[in-house]
């Protein structure tokens, strides 16, 4: 059996390989892996593989990447009786910065949170009217379609979006509800209820605060839609402390998860870059995109989730697929809302094949083309 020290260095280096492949593992997880290696047969490649997989894989999606790392790294020489010696041969040279991260807490995470704070400050113009235009002027702004603003005004409108969202966020209350059964004893209510009786006979209980609602956004970023997606995203992210979690996906012909990008160093920049996600091959495959979502991201949706789809409904795919996938989405989700900026146009009727197929399957169908419609939307962001 290899000396424990070798095992340790080898495992730590394997940890580096994993991190480079996008599977960052903590030191304590790596220590568990070392302990596991001490109790398995190091001559048995399959057993070493299974032991490391049990310790260092956290979810099934990571298994393919883990397997690649394992194959690349584990130059196994059981035939020559060297066991894990192969491990200690130089693997992909660790970069200087990686080693630094090995010692201290990972710097990346810290940076990220700092950046987020920065963004909040930037958007948190709590210093009242300052930037808010006079009332009548504001009303005009509220009703104006986003697409008709000149480019130089867009930043101003964005600031206003965030401001409205923050006002709305403050209104959401978080009370505990009294309940008959279960929950914790509510001493105050029990005392009051029994005051006239001279002793405590009846116990009152109260329930925990209800779970925060989660949001999943599926944004169409094809063609003319990306302007609307941008404002909606900005609006919802400003509201996000009201929600347990916000997950964002964009689609045109393919589905892309952008949650992490939006959390990145510069929210504003990431938002502007959304357009780059879109592929120019033409057409929007809403049905297939939602299918992909249902298949791969099922676990994000439950009864406490509101799913928002932002799209004009111009689907080049099969309406049957769209209808089937919307149905399965609706069965799982707490609420499905479809936002269509074209609805702001009084002469618009949802007659496109895709829209007609999806419409009976959504709980709420609304426009999202101007500030007023975003404000109204907030009222619908609750569960049925």
């Amino acid at each position, binding site marked *: 059996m290899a000396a424990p020290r070798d095992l340790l260095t080898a495992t730590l280096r394997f940890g580096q390989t994993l991190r480079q492949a996008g599977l960052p593992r*903590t030191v*304590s*997880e790596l220590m*568990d892996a070392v*302990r*596991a290696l001490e*109790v*398995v*047969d190091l001559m*048995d490649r*399959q*057993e070493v593989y*299974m*032991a490391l*997989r*049990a*310790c260092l*894989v*956290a*979810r*099934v999606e990571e*298994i393919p990447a883990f397997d690649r790392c394992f194959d690349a790294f584990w130059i196994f020489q059981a035939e020559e009786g060297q066991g894990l010696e192969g491990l200690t041969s130089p693997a992909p040279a660790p970069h200087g910065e990686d080693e630094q991260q090995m010692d201290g807490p990972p710097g990346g995470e810290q940076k990220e949170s700092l950046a987020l704070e920065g963004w909040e400050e930037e958007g948190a113009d709590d210093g009242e009217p300052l930037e808010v235009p006079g009332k009548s002027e504001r009303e005009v702004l509220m009703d104006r379609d986003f697409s008709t603003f000149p480019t130089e005004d867009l930043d101003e409108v964005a600031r206003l979006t965030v401001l409205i969202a923050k006002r709305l966020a403050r209104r959401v209350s978080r009370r505990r509800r009294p309940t008959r059964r*279960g929950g*914790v*004893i509510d001493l105050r209510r029990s005392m009051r209820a029994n005051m006239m009786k001279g002793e*405590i*006979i009846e*116990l009152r209980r109260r329930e*925990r605060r209800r*779970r925060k609602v989660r949001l999943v956004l599926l944004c169409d970023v094809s063609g003319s839609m990306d302007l609307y997606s941008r404002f909606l995203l900005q609006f919802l992210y400003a509201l996000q402390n009201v929600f*347990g979690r916000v997950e964002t996906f964009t689609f045109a012909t393919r589905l892309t998860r952008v949650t992490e990008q939006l959390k990145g160093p510069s929210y504003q920049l990431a938002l502007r870059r959304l357009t780059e996600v879109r592929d120019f091959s033409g057409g929007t495959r809403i049905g297939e995109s939602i299918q992909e979502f249902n298949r791969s991201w*099922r*676990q*994000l949706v*439950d009864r406490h989730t509101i799913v928002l789809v932002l799209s004009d409904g111009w689907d080049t795919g099969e309406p049957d697929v769209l209808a*089937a996938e919307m149905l*399965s989405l609706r069965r799982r989700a707490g609420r499905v809302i479809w936002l269509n900026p074209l609805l702001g146009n009084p002469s618009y009727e949802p007659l496109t094949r895709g829209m007609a197929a999806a419409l009976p399957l959504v709980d709420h169908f609304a426009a999202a083309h101007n500030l007023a419609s975003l404000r109204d939307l907030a009222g619908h962001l609750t569960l049925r």
Partner: protein
Amino acid sequence: MRDEIRTIQALMEGADYVTDAAIATSVYLGMTLKKPLLIEGHAGVGKTEVAKVMARMLETNLIRLQCYEGLDAAQALYEWNYPKQLLHIKLEESTEHSLQQKEAAIFSEPFLIKRPLLQAITQDARPPVLLIDEIDRSDEEFEAFLLEVLSDFQVTIPEIGTIKATHTPHVILTSNRNRELSDALRRRCLYQWMDFPGFDKEVRIVTRKVPGLNERLAREISRFMETLRTIRLAKVPGVAETLDWAQALSSLHADHLDEDLVAETLGCVLKDADDVRRFKRELGTAGLKRFVPAEGS
């Protein structure tokens, strides 16, 4: 392979559970490293069974905590029996006992309702198997609480004091992935993904669990299930469905599959109206051959 792992696999097979080296290894590591084992996988692939088999194998108690939405610490850990305490106070009213004595009496073990987590750490004989089933159905808050219990296996009850685990239980957590679990919980656990069994394993499971079945039918059933799972279905049938179906076919004294028989007993396998429709369409166009290709020809 390590003898210990082979022994565990043999023991699990002996407890009527058909398994493979991957699962045996993770069970072995969980027991040796004293770490919880998180098993994820589709519904009906036998995740819960692992814990039951482990308990049988180790001849110890199985303590099960079934998670559901709204499950909280009181229901998982302990609760004072308030009505009993109130009653006791009433009965004690006329006695001479001092306040301290009365208090000590009502905040003692007989008035404590032990819920599964507290039960699991207060076993006398030997470490039990603690099954935390469908953790994905509980709330995030509960998950955080659980993390705390799993990390030090001790519980503090303000009125009594800290109760330390007599033995560290073997912990198995299962999840159907209805909700994404936190990274913190994942880091704390060993991980095992349980997929649908391959053809050979499923044949072994079927023949083991439904003894009266002839081998040809067992192979046909497994082949059928294997193909069925490649169709896009809303509810992909698991091993549990396979066994139900095999049981049903066995009690019908069937010895091979034909289209009528499949159509009559389809309810054992497919539990969603859309799936049934989709399957029937497929069966209508391609016939049963698509699902059960003739063997050995």
